[in-house]
């Protein structure tokens, strides 16, 4: 828990202190409440840096909790929003909202969340989860199929508009560069509500960890746990994706870190995953601005560049993601 707090503090400080303007520093935080009288540097801090850093922190917390929830309800260490097709479903929702005139009236976060839920439901239907017995291999297979379908549709949506493809690539890898305060409010709302719901589910998740039969015997229907946990995870993911694009790997790496740091009690793991996710994303955001000699790279790429080799190392050492079945 302490490690998580320290990670957040360090990452947040660094993320706030770095950026396109070198004359803006932590001292300008004092201008946060100065309203119209703030200097230019203080305005930069207030209107650009702070929302960006806050959104990174909140995204990390949301995705970390979503990943932990999914790994708990599926009892599968490889489950994560990216691997179950939930990220891609949410991305498809965004593309629908932008490209299809019929959906123009629906708010994007709502559309993204709905599509994320639909993708999760489809993945679980394929894996046989609604019959009460989840096959791990089928779950991954289904997730990959649903994800590929969602992403092919996303690409199709942009095939005909060549000019925007560069921005789309930036968006589809996860970017917080343009996030403003209203989005931060949305993320915070979902983080609080989703975090509360996840914490309330923690007891059921602990029972679930004993096995589906034992969980049933102790009075918790595993199917309801699955549905509730996935719904919360899909909402957390959907709103996050609507703000910053699908950030891969945060939902996979963070739960593993949390489980390696704490006892397997979801009442502790859930807040820890939120803290670690927030710390990871804050550091990734800081690093994305510090990259030497070139323009900023999206935070999602930094997370992927950290997460993918980590996954490889974990698989090679036979730990972590090893027990997919």
């Amino acid at each position, binding site marked *: 828990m302490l490690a998580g707090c320290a990670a957040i503090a360090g990452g947040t400080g660094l993320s706030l202190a770095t950026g396109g303007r070198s004359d803006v520093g932590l001292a300008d935080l004092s201008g946060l409440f100065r309203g119209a009288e703030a200097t230019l540097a203080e305005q930069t801090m207030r209107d650009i840096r702070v929302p960006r850093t806050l959104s990174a922190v909140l995204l990390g917390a949301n995705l970390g909790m979503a990943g932990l929830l999914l790994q708990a309800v599926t009892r599968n260490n490889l489950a994560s929003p990216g691997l179950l097709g939930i990220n891609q479903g949410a991305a498809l929702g965004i593309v629908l909202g932008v490209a299809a005139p019929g959906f123009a009236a629906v708010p994007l976060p709502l559309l993204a969340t709905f599509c994320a839920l639909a993708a999760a439901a489809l993945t679980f239907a394929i894996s046989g989860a609604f019959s009460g017995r989840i096959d791990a291999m089928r779950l991954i297979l289904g997730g990959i199929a649903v994800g*590929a379908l969602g992403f*092919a549709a996303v690409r199709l949506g942009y*095939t005909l508009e060549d000019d925007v493809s560069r921005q789309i690539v930036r968006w589809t890898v996860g970017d917080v560069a343009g996030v403003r305060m209203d989005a931060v409010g949305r993320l915070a709302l979902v983080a609080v509500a989703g975090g509360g719901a996840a914490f309330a589910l923690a007891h059921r998740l602990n029972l679930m960890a004993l096995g589906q039969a034992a969980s049933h015997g102790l009075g918790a229907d595993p199917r309801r746990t699955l549905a509730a946990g996935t719904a919360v995870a899909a909402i957390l993911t959907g709103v996050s994706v609507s703000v910053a694009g699908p950030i891969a790997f945060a939902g996979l790496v963070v739960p593993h870190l949390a489980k390696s740091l704490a006892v397997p009690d979801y009442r502790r793991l859930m807040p820890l995953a939120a803290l670690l996710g927030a710390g990871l994303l804050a550091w990734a955001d800081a690093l994305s601005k510090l990259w030497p000699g070139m*323009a900023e*790279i999206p935070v999602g790429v930094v997370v992927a*560049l950290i997460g993918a080799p980590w996954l*490889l190392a974990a*698989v090679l050492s036979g730990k972590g993601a090893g027990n997919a079945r």
Partner: protein
Amino acid sequence: MRADPLPYHRFGSRRTSCTLILLSLVLTAAVLFGLTSGAVPIPASVLWNTLLGFDGPRQDFILLNLRLPRTLLAALTGASLAVSGAVIQSLLRNPLASPKIAGINSGAAFAVLSCTLILPAHASGLAPYAAAAGGLAAGGLVWIMASRGQVDAARLTLIGVATGFALDAAVEFLLVTQTGPEFSAPMIWLTGSLWGRGWTHLAGVAPVLSVLILLAFLLSFRLDLQYLGPARAAALGARNRLERGAAFLVAVLLAAISVSVVGVIGFVGLMAPHIAMRLVGGRHWPLLPAAALTGAIFCAGADAAGRAIAPPAEISAGIVTALLGAPFFIWLLISENRSQRGTG
């Protein structure tokens, strides 16, 4: 699921031959469809006049120089990807497996993008070699990392997925940091498209791919043994390391070379073997040819459909295969769920 040893034994050889002939006919139809569809609609009469040398209105240039090589290339790479997928699936005894799972696509993509970044002037000429080398390197790396001790199928799959993710992250990094004007070409290639492919591309890869496909066919009897699992295969006299290594090398080369000319066309290597297995069963001798035909139909049809849907705009073949392949795959999984529940 495929992990059970040789699951479909129930079909006789007559049904198998009929199926192969039928698949060939469907492939012919797909190729003809590929020739007629596109920005310039060509009616059947003109098609026959041009192809068979009849008198009358002809479309020599479009048909013979643009669409014919392109469609043939689609069919050939589709067959290669499908055979590659079938071999990898049976080596790993894993229905999830495909060339993509072994990290081949990502390795090729990374190599091609690095190439456009480092040597932009020579990028178009070097790209095929870079893709083949990158795919081979990634596949080889996965094999080496997995093969400390015995090559364990589950371990190989996980290492392949993880390697693919790592390379994908590197590809994303290159894509977002690249600022040159050559941005759209790698994008089209990454989605898998036959746009602008012609006789030179076909001539470049056709001999190698044909030989590799034949090699895979020759290996099919050894693959039957290997499908029983390394331990049982060894007990029946197979030289595991040599046979599995050779089969894996053939599969990686097939996929890497295909990707080098047409880009990342997903789902063919995953889907075609599944369809072929449902049609002719699990023994590799009819399975590999059936998979090759299915893959060829899939790719040629996807390319043709991509041109036919909204001419003159083109939808990349890779998008079409994913849009068709993913739902089919989902249906396949659900229907297998049901049949499993039925039999208890």
